[in-house]
C-alpha cells in the first residue's frame, strides 16, 4: 500500500517538475530568433554586423517620384513616412532587406511595395564594409501610429540568430509636408 502511494507521489512530483520545465523553456522562435540591439535616434546604433544612423524623418500625404522614366504618384488614407538613414556594414557585403516601423500600438508596418522603383531605396542596395551608404526607407501607416515609433532593421525578415537593430524614433523631429518629391539627391 505504502509503496503504491509512494510511487504515485513520485510520479506526481516528476510530472510537476516536467511541467515547470516545459513552461519556463523559451520557445523555439525566441531561441533561434533575432539578436536585438536598441538605441535612440540621436545615436549611431551598432550591432555586431552593421550600424544605423537615422538622419531625417518626413511625413507626407502624397509621394511622387520617377520610376523607369514614368512619373508615379502615390496617396494614402494614413500617412507616408520617409526615413533617411546612413547604414554601414562592418565585415561583409550585405543588403538590409527587412525594414519595418513598430507603431504606437505595437503593430509592425513593413516597408511599402507601392513605392518600388523610387530612387535611393536601401532595400536593394549592396552595403560594402567600411563604406557608409545613405538612402531612404518608405513606410505607410495610419496617422495615429506615428506618435511613438521604432525603426526595426535586419538583413532578412524574421532573422534567425542574426542581428536586428531597433531605433527608437523621436516624434518631435518628424517634419510634416503635404507632398514629397523623391529625387536622386534625396527628399
Amino acid at each position, binding site marked *: 500500500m505504502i509503496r503504491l502511494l509512494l510511487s504515485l507521489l513520485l510520479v506526481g512530483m516528476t510530472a510537476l517538475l516536467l511541467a515547470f520545465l516545459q513552461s519556463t523553456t523559451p*520557445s523555439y*522562435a525566441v531561441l533561434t530568433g533575432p539578436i536585438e540591439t536598441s538605441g535612440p535616434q540621436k545615436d549611431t546604433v551598432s550591432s555586431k554586423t552593421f550600424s544605423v544612423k537615422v538622419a531625417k524623418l518626413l511625413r507626407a500625404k502624397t509621394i511622387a517620384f520617377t520610376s523607369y522614366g514614368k512619373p508615379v504618384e502615390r496617396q494614402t*488614407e494614413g500617412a507616408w513616412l520617409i526615413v533617411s538613414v546612413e547604414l554601414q556594414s562592418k565585415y561583409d557585403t550585405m543588403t538590409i532587406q527587412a525594414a*519595418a516601423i513598430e507603431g504606437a500600438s505595437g503593430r509592425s*508596418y513593413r516597408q511599402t511595395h*507601392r513605392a518600388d522603383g523610387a530612387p535611393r531605396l536601401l532595400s536593394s542596395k549592396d552595403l560594402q564594409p567600411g563604406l557608409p551608404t545613405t538612402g531612404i526607407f518608405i513606410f505607410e501607416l495610419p496617422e495615429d*501610429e506615428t506618435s511613438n515609433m521604432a525603426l526595426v532593421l535586419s538583413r532578412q525578415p524574421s532573422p534567425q540568430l542574426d542581428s536586428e537593430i531597433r531605433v527608437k524614433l523621436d516624434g518631435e523631429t518628424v517634419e510634416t509636408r503635404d507632398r514629397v518629391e523623391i529625387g536622386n539627391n534625396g527628399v
Partner: protein
Amino acid sequence: MNQSAISKANKALYTRIIAGIGGLLAGALSLGLSIYETRTGTEVAQVPPGKPVDAGQWMVILNSGSVATETPDGRHLPDGKKALTLDLTLENMTAESSNLYRDTLKLENLANPPAPQFYLVRDNDLLWDLQPMMPEKVKVVWQLPATQTLPKVLNVAIVGTTYKPKDNLYAAPGWFNPNDVARVGLPLSVGQGANP
C-alpha cells in the same frame, strides 16, 4: 518458486488486459471525434453583399462582381480570355503587414477557377502587402476562357482562420484551420464590351 511464477504470470495478464482496455478506449475516442466532426460545420451563414465579414486575419466586404475585358491596371487580357472581376474592401486585422489574402475567397459555383490576381484600386496596379488597420479598395480578377458560361449569381465563400499564439511545432504565433465563415451571392453584371 511456483508461487512467484504464478503471481508473475498473473501480473503479466493484468498488464495485458489493462493495456488492451486503454488501446480500445483510445480507438473509440478517435473514431467518435471524427464522426462528430463530420456532423457539424455544414451550415455557413449567408451574407448580403456590402456587409463586413470577419475572417480572422481580414475584414472582407464584397461589393459587386462583373466581367471585364481588361485587368484593373489597364493591361489587355490574352486572346480568348475574359476577366471575372470582384470589387471588395479588404482590411488587415492582424498585428503586422501581410499579403496572405490569396486564399480568402473561394468561388463555389465555378469549376476549377485559376489562381486569382489582386489589384489595388487606388494605384491601378498589383496589390502587394496590406498594412494593418488600413482598409483598401481591392479588385480580384480570375482570368477565364471567354467561352466559359458564368452563373447569374456567383456564390463566393469567405474563408476565415483562427489565431493561435503558439502553434504545435515551433511555438510561434500563426493563423490556422481555414473554414468557411460566410457565403455571399453576387449578381454578375456584364462590364463594357464583354462580348468578344
